């Protein structure tokens, strides 16, 4: 049997007001995107508790994408600024503990009108994760 190409599983937490709309538009406009991002719609990127990200990784996600509005354009004024601080903190934790989850985690700003940008982000991040290969904790029993 021919070996199947690895398609990463990426959990995407998309802000309802921007990235989610952009993803929707990208789909409707039939922009080419890999089928790797599994979308979880959240009301704001600031809603993403670090536990969501950890949970996604520890249940075997190959990557986690958090996408929200550009700084200054948050529907709730400041949710994305908080998301950015949390992302920085998570990356710092991953780096200190020598976990490669830092490379598998991405925070991106995508406004509602930027459907092509969303397709780019999805494509680029999928490619990055593909290079890293399947998550080493996919079949780990002790979590």
């Amino acid at each position, binding site marked *: 049997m021919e070996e199947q190409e690895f398609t990463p599983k990426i959990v995407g937490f998309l802000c309802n007001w921007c990235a989610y709309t952009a993803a929707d538009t990208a789909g409707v406009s039939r922009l080419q995107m890999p089928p790797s991002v599994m979308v979880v719609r959240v009301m704001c990127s600031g809603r993403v508790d670090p536990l969501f990200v*950890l949970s996604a990784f520890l249940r075997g996600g190959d990557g986690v994408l958090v996408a929200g509005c550009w*700084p200054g354009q948050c529907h709730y004024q400041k949710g994305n600024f908080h998301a*950015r601080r949390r992302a920085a903190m998570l990356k710092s*934790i991953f780096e200190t*503990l020598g976990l490669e989850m830092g490379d598998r985690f991405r925070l991106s700003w995508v406004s509602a009108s930027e459907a092509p940008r969303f397709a780019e982000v999805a494509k680029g991040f999928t490619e990055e994760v593909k290079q890293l290969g399947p998550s080493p904790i996919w*079949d780990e029993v002790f*979590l």
Partner: protein
Amino acid sequence: MPEGLKINKGAQEAVRELLCSLLESGRVNGVLALGRTRGANGGVAYSLFTDSDAFVADGAALPFLPFMPANAGGLLSRLTLKGSLAGPVAAVVKPCELRAFIELVKRSQGSLDNLLLISSTCGGVYPLDVGANGGLEERLPRYWEAVKQGEVDSDVRPVCRACVHFVPENADITVALVGEEDLDTQCTLFLDTEKGAAFVKGLEGLQGTSLSGELETEPIQRSHSQRAAYREELFAGVEVGMQELIRTFGRCIGCHACKTVCPICYCSLCYFDSQDCEYLPEIYESELERKGGLRLPPNTVFFQLGRLAHVSVSCVGCGMCTDVCPADIPVSTIFSKVGTSVQALFDYQPGKDVTEEIPLMTFEEEELAQVAT
């Protein structure tokens, strides 16, 4: 230059007498300090004394005993959770406990009003099991000898040996202990705030000469660099990488004692104790099918990483979590190491300034541009 007092008595004795006078004069309604509980099997616990006779009886109060049965920061939060105390209470706490309390006050879990906070430069504390197994008394002479020299006894907890914040912040009164060679006969204390000075001013029964000097003496600086070096060494010993983390945290029995004793973990219902962490049978089944096995109880690495994400920014490195871990996981070493890097990221020092916002509760518009891509 900070104002202080010199009292011609041993440090412990002098502070005990100071607290006694405060109680007798009615300047404070109570004193929170370590004390020996009554009875033949009396142990040492944080106690709230309201009676000066009980306070001095049989050396019941042990203000600077190198022992931490609970983080007093959490206890102070409990005393003031529903509002400030009706009358003034003095509390003798260690620097890390004070920092923890400040972090809790920032989270609206306590109030600084009506508290007279007394702390000291700290030579570390012994692990809980040393105290529980009666090993404390025999180590005390050694401990105080080390403190006088500005050294740290090798038996104190690793995270205390690696502590670089052993000079208290935000204390009303600071007692100098580390590097004070004559602490058996002399007590030097600094009145860091107006509140501290007001409580002591004109206090009956207190005989001391005023002094003005620096708390940061040469031995303290020396101790600081020694501890900083040990800190590097201790942190370098933390095994990093997913497999290593799984090995370390895989020992976790899921008792959540680290969370219970952690002063920063204040949530009344922890996510990890909630229904959200109880999986449906289908989830167990699908995990089993995929992995061919599942470690029970689950969520060991998740629990520790999740707790890191929630508290590392405010971790004061008090070491209680390692003390209570029945599986001997070096929790506080890992938390201190991660805490140090997260706190450096936001240029934040937990417990330093009560008016400074917790980094995750605030932001600047122009920052961290490299995080988002």
